Each structure stands twice: as C-alpha cells, then as structure tokens.
C-alpha cells in the first residue's frame, strides 16, 4: 500500500511558485530521503505532505485517504528541524516527549501508565532515558534533536517524517539517531526524511528523491557523493545491487568535496 501518494502537487508562496508538478509514492516499510540544495523546495515538499503548507494544485493522499479528510494523525510522527522557539518556561525532557502521546490519547484524557511507559521506551530508544528529568535547555543540540525523535516515537507512529534531522548534530547523536531509525525501520515502520548530508543513515535509505528548483530531478538509488568517491582509500560498499545507469549531477553544492 502507498503510505504517501503525491500527484502533480504544486505549491506557491505569495504568488511565487515553489514546487511544480511533484509526483511521489512512498510504500509501506520504505525509507525515503529527499535531497537537494538549500532553497530547492525539499523542506516545503514534506511540509506540504504534512499539511503545514497549503497545497496549490494536485492531490496528496496519506494512508490511502485524501489529505483534507485525513484524521489519523497518530499514525504520523513528525520531527521538526529544531526545538520550537516557544521555550520561555523550563520543561523537562520527559514533558516534551510526553507531548508525543497526545495524538494517540486525545487532549481530554489524562495520561496513564501506558503513556509513561511509551515515553520511557522512546527515550531509551534514543539513549536519553537518564536525562528524563533534566530541563531540555541543558541538553546539547544533538541531544535536543534526539529528544524530538523520542517525542515522535512515543506516539508509536507508522510513518516517521524528519526534517533535516542530522543538521549540526554531533557524531554520538548521529549514531544514536541512526540506530533508532534502523530499529524503527526493522519493525516495519516507513520513514520519510529530508537531508542535506546523509552520514551514518546512508545505508538505510531505500530510495532517494532529489529536488532541484522545485521539481523532482531524480528518483532512485542514493546518488554517489561526487567528491568522496574519487578520494583515494575510499572503501564504500554500495548496498544497492542495481544496474548502473547514467546519474545526474544533483545539488552540486551539497556534494562538493570539502577540498
């Protein structure tokens, strides 16, 4: 079954077209990475899928239901780029992660033992259970990112949507994060993520979608990083046994060698 189906989607901001004629299918259990340069429209694409940006044209279906009629939001776990700015009051890691249970529980029912258990399990999954009572403001950027992933996982979603989850995240957090995603995928979960740099999650990706100037420029196996590949001593085993085909040079600024 198609978890996400996008048909000829178009989006514009204040009269300026940002996405043109996007069609995309994500099947159950797939791990899909949306790649592209800054300003290519990759974040807008997933925000449109989530309903945060209004669709200008075309159609989007989530779990087989037209987006406008979709109500089972508990099936989707969203991980934003960074912690919200609205943090004038201290909040503990546990309290932030507990927000992830609301979609499943509803806003009127008080939280119970099952909720507390799910929060602890999600924090254990990202390796932050020992920080459950600490204020989120005392965490590093990478740990805050893991807290947001735990919040999404706490709702036990079927689809995880992540917006640049590894941007500016330390190596330890990237590894913990990749491990959590691997377990989520192994349990049958579907993942859609936007990334700038794949890092340790690269082996997990089933399909890459490259967005360039508001259009899908490429869909298929993860494109080879232009720079790394040419480096001496490069020992990269490509996990996809697909027939070699002509690759487009995508988002050149992202894949440039660090020189």
């Amino acid at each position, binding site marked *: 079954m198609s978890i996400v189906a996008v048909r000829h989607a178009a989006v514009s901001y204040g009269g300026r077209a940002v996405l043109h004629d996007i069609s995309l299918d994500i099947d159950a259990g797939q791990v899909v990475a949306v790649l592209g340069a800054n300003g290519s429209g990759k974040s807008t694409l997933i925000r449109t899928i*989530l*309903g*945060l940006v209004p669709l200008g044209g075309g159609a989007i279906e989530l779990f087989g239901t037209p987006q406008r009629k979709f*109500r*089972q*939001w*508990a099936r*989707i776990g*969203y991980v*934003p780029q960074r*912690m*919200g*700015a*609205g*943090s*004038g*009051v*201290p*909040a*503990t890691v*546990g*309290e*932030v992660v*507990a*927000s*992830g249970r*609301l*979609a499943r529980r509803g*806003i*009127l029912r008080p*939280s119970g033992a099952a909720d507390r258990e799910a929060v602890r399990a999600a924090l254990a999954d990202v390796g932050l259970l020992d920080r459950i*009572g*600490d*204020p989120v403001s005392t965490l590093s950027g990478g740990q805050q990112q893991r807290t947001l992933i735990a*919040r999404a996982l706490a*709702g036990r979603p079927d689809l995880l*949507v992540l917006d640049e989850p590894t941007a500016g995240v330390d190596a330890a957090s990237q590894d913990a994060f990749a491990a959590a995603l691997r377990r989520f995928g192994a349990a049958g979960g579907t993942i859609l993520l936007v990334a700038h740099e794949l890092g340790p999650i690269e082996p997990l990706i089933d399909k890459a979608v490259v967005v360039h100037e508001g259009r899908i420029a490429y869909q298929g196996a993860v494109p080879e990083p232009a720079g790394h590949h040419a480096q001496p001593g490069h020992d990269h085993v490509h996990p996809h046994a697909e027939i070699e085909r002509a690759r487009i040079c995508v988002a050149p600024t992202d894949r440039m060698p660090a020189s």
Partner: protein
Amino acid sequence: MDLFQYDFMIRALIGALIIGLVAPALGIYLVQRRLSLIGDGIGHVALTGVGVGLLLHQSPVYTAVIVSVLGAIGVELVRERGRTSGDLALALLFYGGIAGGVVLVGLSEDSSNANLMQFLFGSLTTTSRQDLTVIAVLGVAVLVAMLGLRQALFAVCNDEEYARVSGLPVRTLNLLMAVTTAVTVTIAMRTVGLLLVSALMVVPVAAAQQVTRGFRTTMTAAMAIGVGAAAAGIWLAGEANTAPGATIVILAIAAFVALTVGSTTWRILRRRLAPARSGIGVEAEPPDVVLQVGVR
C-alpha cells in the same frame, strides 16, 4: 488580624486569593509563548468595556468581559496570520482600547477620576458579594481549563507546528487561551487593576522558574507564589494602609528578586565547593600511586 473581622476585608482576601491562584496558572502559557505582555494589552482593551458599561448603566464587569474577549480574539487572529504588521495592529488595538475607555468613562454620568482609578489600579475593598460570586465562578472555570488541558496547551505553546501535525485542535486551543486571558484580566480588574493585571500573570511564573526545572513544577510553584503574594499583600495593605493591588505586585516582585539572588548564590557556592571537593580527590591520589609503586 483585627482587620479581618470586617466582611469587606474577608471578601477582599477571598477575591485576591482566587486571582493569585488563577492568574499564574494562565500566565505560564503566555510566558512560554513569549507573550508576557498580552495580558497588559487586553487590560487596555477591557477599559473600553468598562466605559461602555458605565455609559449604558450596566455592570462594568460584564461589558468588560465581552469587549476584552472580542479584543483577545482579534489579537489571536492577527497573531495567527503572523504578518509583520501584527505588531502595529496590536499597538493600535491597545491604545485605541485605553483611549476609548477614558473617553467613554468621561462621558458617563458616573465620571470621576476616582472611578477611573478604581478600574486602573483596583479597588478590592469595594468588592461586593455579587462581584465575588462572579470572580469565583469565572476563576474556577479558567483554572479547570488550564489544569485539565495542561498537556495540550503545553504542546501548542511549546511547538505549534508539531501540535498541528499531531492533529490537535490548535485553533480552538488558541482561541480558548485568548478567551480565558480576557476573562482573567476582567476578574483581576477588581484586585490589582487593569494596569497591573499582567504582573500577576507573569511575575509569579518568572519567580518560580528561577528555581524549577520542569513545566509542571514551575506551574505549581508559580501558583503557590501567586497565592502567597496575594494573602501577604492583603494583610500588609491592611496593616500599612497601602493600595492592595500594588502591594501584592510588589511582594511578587520581591519573591522574584529573592529567588533569583538565592538561586544565583547557591549556584556560585556549589561551583566553589565542587573544585574544592575534586581538589581533595587529587590530594588523595599520590598515596595510592606510592603504594602501587611499592608493590611493584
């Protein structure tokens, strides 16, 4: 303590305690959303409602509730759009509110400076039995909403986009916040006055978060500080013959200063003590090394 043998002082105390409890319970969400001054703005708008009430010979509390609820919904709709002109729209609304209030109160038959001052700075001791009933009923309603919907309101104020993707009724919750803010402003009008309302929503929260680590503990501590400041303020105002509303606010600010100084001192002391402790550890190490060398 003799003061509390008078009914009006008892009513003043009960009214102040209710506001002291309710205002921070609501204010914590406003602070979390960095809208600390919104209560002040709504207070300005409520003054127009007071003017309308006096002009029409209606209870100013009821007309103030209606006008400030409309004003708060207007503010929320402007905020939701997120336009850059929102800041300017708010300024227009606030100053329009206070100017309209002053003009309307002036036009009413009951126009006197004392009357205007009553609403601007509170007149707790003139709280009637009927006023107190209104304060209690509305106060309990706001409190139940703030405590009962704590997790949902926390989610919306903490990360609105995430709340929307979670399928929460974000708009309804935002409007609920706007309406309860307006209601709290109006019932607090009697206690601290429209110009000091915002202080009771924000200052106890600011004081509490100097020493707390989580949202729930901050909320509980802020409510305790609010009630404490209200009770102590009424007593002190009676003893020293000062304005009760202003006395309550000054005590809340005193709590903020005391907790800030206290927690900063504690942090500095702990930092000073920590190296001293590890210093002992360093000194304790050499004998072990010597011992190991001796064994070998």
